[in-house]
C-alpha cells in the first residue's frame, strides 16, 4: 500500500479512547496548545465510563469537614493492600477535588447538600462520605460533561475508528494505524505523542460488567510498542452484578445500594458479612447489626457496616456463601434494600437501579430483594507509567485511566476510578502536549514497512476460508478465563489456563471472517481477539507467579497475604522474540511523612 492512497492525519497528540480519561486527556492536551485528536472505537459518549454509577471520590469535605487528601490517600492505600504506587495515590487524593469542581464549571449538575454544595455519598472502603454523585448515573454525567467540553473546544474526534498498531520511529512513538469501522478503510495518524486511554480487559471473562470494547487494546498495543505492564494479576470482581435473567448476567448493581443502606443476606436470611471481617479491617468495622445500622445516621460514634468493606473482601465472602450452598435460586445471594428503606427514598437515590431491575429482570427493588453475584469489573494492573506525567517507558507513549497500572495497587476502591480518570487523564494529556512541544524540532518519521505490515495483518482474516469462527473462539476464551483465572485461583488451574490460552492463540492465527470490510463485526472481533488473548496470558502468568492472596488476586493454595510479596511488583514485557516475559521489581518506597499516616495511633 502506498502512502498516497492511505488516509493520513498529522497531530501533535493522538488520544486513543474517548472515555473519561481519554476525553480529559484530550481537553488538557488541547489546552496546552497541542493539535489534538481523539480516536475511539464507538460513537462519542458511549464509552464504558457511562456505566459508572456511584460517584467520583474526592476529599472535598462538603459533608464531613474532617475529610482531607491524607485520609483519602490512606483509604486508597489500605484498600489496595499497600501495593499502590504511593505517588499516584497521593496525586490522586490531592487533585481529585479540583477535577470535580472543574466538571461543574463545564456544566455538570451534581446532587447538592443543604448548603448548595456538591453532595457526597458513602462508599465501601472510604472513611468519610466523599463520592460526588448524580443519583446513580455519575459516569453518564461525567462523560457527557467532558464530551460537551471537548466539542466546545473543537477537538477533532475520529469516531468508530479502531487503532490496531502503534507506529514507532526507532525508540519513539511515531503515530498510530487503524481502520474505520463503517467503511473498513485504513487510516494513519502521524503524531509524536500518543495517549492510551482504552480502558480495561473485562471482555475476556464470561460474566462481566464490561462492554464489548473492553478487549485490552491499550494493554496489547503498549506491550507491542515496547512498554511494560505492571501487576496484571489483580482483577477486580465487583461483588454485586445481576445474575438473572441469564442475558443480563454480570450487569452491575451499584455499590451505592449498600452505601444507602442495602444489606447482603444468604438463603437463610442471615447478614453473613459479619462472619467475614478480616483482621486488617476489624478496627473500623462494626461487629453487630445494631452498630452497623446506627452508622448510617451517626458516623462519628459507630463503625462501618461490613457490607461496605472493600470490594475484594465482599466478593470473596459472597463467593464462599454461594459455594457453601447458601445462595439464592439463581446462584447468587440477596441484596436487600426494600425492607430497609422506603420506596420514595430508593427511587430518588437509585433511579437507574430501579429502572434497570424493573426493565431487565421485572423485579421491583422497592418491594423485593435483588439477586446478585460477583462480576468481572476492573483491572488494577496496566501500563507501567511515571506517576507525575503518565509516560510509559516508551518516549511519547502515555497511558491514563484503567489501562494504566499502579494507582490502585491490588484492589480499587469504588469511586476512585472516576477520579483516577480525571486526575491522570489531565496529567497524561498535559504532558503529552508538552512532550510534542519539546520535540517539535525533531519530528518523527513513519516507516512504510510498519504501515504495510499493519495493513496486511488487518486483512489476514479475509484471506482464508473455513478457518476458525471468531465468535466461537471468543466464547471459549471467556470460558477459560472465567473457570480457570477467576476470583479464586490455584496453581493447577492457572497452568492449565496457560496451556489452553496457547492453544487458543494458535487457533487465532487461523481465523476466517465472511463478508467484506464495510461495518463487519466478525472482522472487528477477529482483530480484537489477539489483544484479548494477550491480556489473558498476562493475567494468568502474573497470577501464577504471585504465590499469595492479596486484593483482587486470591490463591486457594496460598490463602494468606505474604509480607515478602508486599514490596514486589510483577512486570510484563514483550521480549525480543515477541514472547511475554515476567520480572519482579521492587515497589517504590513511600516517603516517611506519608508512612506515618499508617502508624497505629
Amino acid at each position, binding site marked *: 500500500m502506498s502512502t498516497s492512497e492511505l488516509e493520513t492525519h498529522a497531530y501533535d497528540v493522538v488520544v486513543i479512547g474517548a472515555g473519561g480519561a481519554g476525553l480529559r486527556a484530550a481537553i488538557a492536551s488541547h489546552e496546552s496548545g497541542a493539535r489534538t485528536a481523539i480516536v475511539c472505537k464507538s460513537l462519542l459518549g458511549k464509552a464504558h465510563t*457511562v456505566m459508572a454509577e456511584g460517584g467520583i471520590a474526592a476529599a472535598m469535605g462538603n459533608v464531613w469537614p474532617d475529610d482531607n487528601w491524607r485520609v483519602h490517600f490512606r483509604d486508597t492505600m489500605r484498600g489496595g493492600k499497600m501495593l499502590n504506587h504511593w505517588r499516584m495515590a497521593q496525586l490522586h487524593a490531592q487533585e481529585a477535588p479540583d477535577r470535580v469542581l472543574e466538571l461543574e464549571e463545564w456544566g455538570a449538575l451534581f446532587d447538592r447538600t443543604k448548603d448548595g454544595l456538591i453532595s457526597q455519598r458513602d462508599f465501601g472502603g472510604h472513611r468519610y462520605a466523599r463520592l460526588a454523585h448524580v443519583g446513580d448515573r455519575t459516569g453518564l454525567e461525567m462523560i457527557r460533561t467532558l464530551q460537551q467540553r471537548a466539542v466546545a473546544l473543537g477537538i477533532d474526534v475520529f469516531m468508530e475508528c479502531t487503532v490496531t498498531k502503534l507506529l514507532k520511529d526507532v525508540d519513539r512513538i511515531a503515530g498510530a494505524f487503524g481502520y474505520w469501522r463503517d467503511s473498513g478503510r485504513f487510516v494513519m495518524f502521524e503524531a509524536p505523542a500518543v495517549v492510551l486511554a482504552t480502558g480495561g480487559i473485562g471482555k475476556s471473562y464470561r460474566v462481566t460488567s464490561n462492554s464489548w470494547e473492553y478487549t485490552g487494546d491499550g494493554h496489547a498495543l503498549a506491550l507491542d510498542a515496547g512498554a511494560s505492564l505492571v501487576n496484571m494479576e489483580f482483577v477486580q470482581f465487583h461483588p454485586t452484578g445481576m445474575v438473572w435473567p441469564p442475558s443480563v448476567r454480570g450487569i452491575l448493581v451499584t455499590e451505592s445500594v449498600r452505601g444507602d443502606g442495602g444489606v447482603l443476606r444468604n438463603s437463610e436470611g442471615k447478614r453473613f458479612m459479619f462472619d467475614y471481617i478480616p483482621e486488617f479491617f476489624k478496627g473500623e468495622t462494626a461487629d453487630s447489626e445494631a452498630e452497623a445500622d446506627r452508622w448510617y445516621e451517626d458516623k462519628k460514634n459507630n463503625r462501618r457496616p461490613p457490607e461496605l468493606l472493600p470490594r475484594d473482601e465482599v466478593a470473596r465472602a459472597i463467593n464462599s456463601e454461594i459455594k457453601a450452598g447458601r445462595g439464592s435460586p439463581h446462584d447468587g445471594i440477596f441484596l436487600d434494600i426494600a425492607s430497609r428503606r422506603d420506596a420514595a427514598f430508593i427511587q430518588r437515590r437509585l433511579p437507574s437501579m430501579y429502572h434497570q431491575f424493573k426493565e431487565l429482570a421485572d423485579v421491583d427493588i422497592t418491594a423485593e430483594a435483588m439477586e446478585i453475584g460477583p462480576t468481572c469489573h476492573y483491572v488494577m494492573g496496566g501500563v507501567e507509567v511515571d506517576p507525575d506525567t503518565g509516560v510509559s517507558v516508551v518516549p511519547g507513549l502515555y497511558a491514563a485511566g484503567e489501562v494504566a497500572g499502579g494507582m490502585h495497587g491490588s484492589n480499587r476502591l469504588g469511586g476512585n476510578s472516576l477520579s483516577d480518570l480525571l486526575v491522570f487523564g489531565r496529567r497524561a494529556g498535559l504532558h503529552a502536549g508538552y512532550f510534542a512541544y519539546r520535540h517539535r524540532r525533531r519530528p518523527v518519521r513513519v516507516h512504510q514497512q510498519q504501515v504495510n505490515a499493519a495493513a496486511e495483518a488487518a486483512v489476514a482474516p479475509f484471506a482464508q476460508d473455513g478457518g476458525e469462527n471468531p465468535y466461537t473462539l471468543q466464547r471459549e476464551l471467556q470460558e477459560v478465563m472465567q473457570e480457570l483465572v477467576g476470583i479464586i485461583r490455584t496453581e493447577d488451574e492457572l497452568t492449565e489456563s496457560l496451556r489452553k490460552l496457547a492453544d487458543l492463540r494458535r487457533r487465532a492465527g487461523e481465523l476466517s471472517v465472511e463478508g467484506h470490510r464495510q*461495518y463487519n463485526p466478525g472482522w472487528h472481533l477477529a482483530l480484537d481477539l489477539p489483544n484479548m488473548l494477550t491480556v489473558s496470558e498476562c493475567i494468568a502468568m502474573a497470577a501464577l507467579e504471585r504465590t499469595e492472596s492479596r486484593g483482587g488476586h486470591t490463591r486457594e493454595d496460598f490463602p494468606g497475604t505474604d509480607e515478602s510479596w508486599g514490596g514486589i511488583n510483577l512486570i510484563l514485557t514483550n521480549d525480543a522474540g515477541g514472547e511475554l516475559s515476567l520480572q519482579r521489581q521492587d515497589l517504590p518506597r513511600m516517603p516517611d511523612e506519608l508512612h506515618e499516616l499508617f502508624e497505629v495511633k
Partner: protein
Amino acid sequence: MGYPLSMRLWRGDRDGGALQDFTVEVEEGEVVLDAIHRVQATQAGDLAVRWNCKAGKCGSCSAEINGRSRLMCMTRLSDFGHEDVITVTPLRAFPVVRDLVTDVSYNYVKARELPAFAPTPPDADGKRRMMQQDVERGQEFRKCIECFLCQNTCHVIRDHEENKPAFAGPRFFLRYAELDMHPLDTHDRRELAQSAAGIGLCNITKCCTEVCPENIKITDNAIIPMKERVVDRKYDPLVWLGTKIRRRDDRTEL
C-alpha cells in the same frame, strides 16, 4: 425453556436492501439484542449492529423493532408471543450504513452548533453553590443517553430531509432547556433556540416523549417550557417590558 424465534432483519446498505428471515433459538429472559447476537455468532457473522453496554445506559443499540423506535437491549422477548415475528430495521430517519447500523452524524453536527455553558465565577472559596431544587430540572434532561430515538421518531426530520439543516431536534431542545434553566449560566440562548435550532418547527406531537427510554418528559418539561421562554422573549411585550425595567435578566444574548 428455549424456543425458536422468527425474526426479519433488514440487511443491506445505501445501494439497497431488504428484510431477511432468520430463525434463531432463544431463551427465557432474553432481549432482542441477545437474539441478534446469536444470529451473528451462528448464522451471519458479518451482520452489522451497533451496541455497547447492553444495559440501557449508553444508547448505542437504537433500532426500529416492529416499526417502533426502541433500544434492542431493553426490548424483552417476553413482550412478544412465541409465535410472533419480530421485525428489526435500522433507524429510518438517518442514512443507513449497513444492516442495522445508521449514520447518526447529524446529531453530532447539531451538538457542535450549540453554544457551551458559560457559568458565573465561583464563590470566594472556589466552590459554586446551587440548591437541589434549582438543578433538578436540568438533571432530568441530563439523564439523556443520546440514543437519538427521539431524533429518529421526530417527523420534522424523519419525513422531511430538507428540514435537517434548520432543526436541531428534541435531544438538543433538552440541551437548550437545560442551559436556559441553569441557575448559573450567563448566556441567553432563547433567540438561538428559535433561529438556529428551529424550535418553531416542532408541532409538539410528542413522539419524542413516547420513545424516550429514560422516560424524560421531553415535550412537557423541555420543549414546551422552551417554547414559552421564546414567547417571553419575542411575543410577550409585558414580559419584555418587565425585564427591561427591573433588569432582572442580566444574561448576554447569543
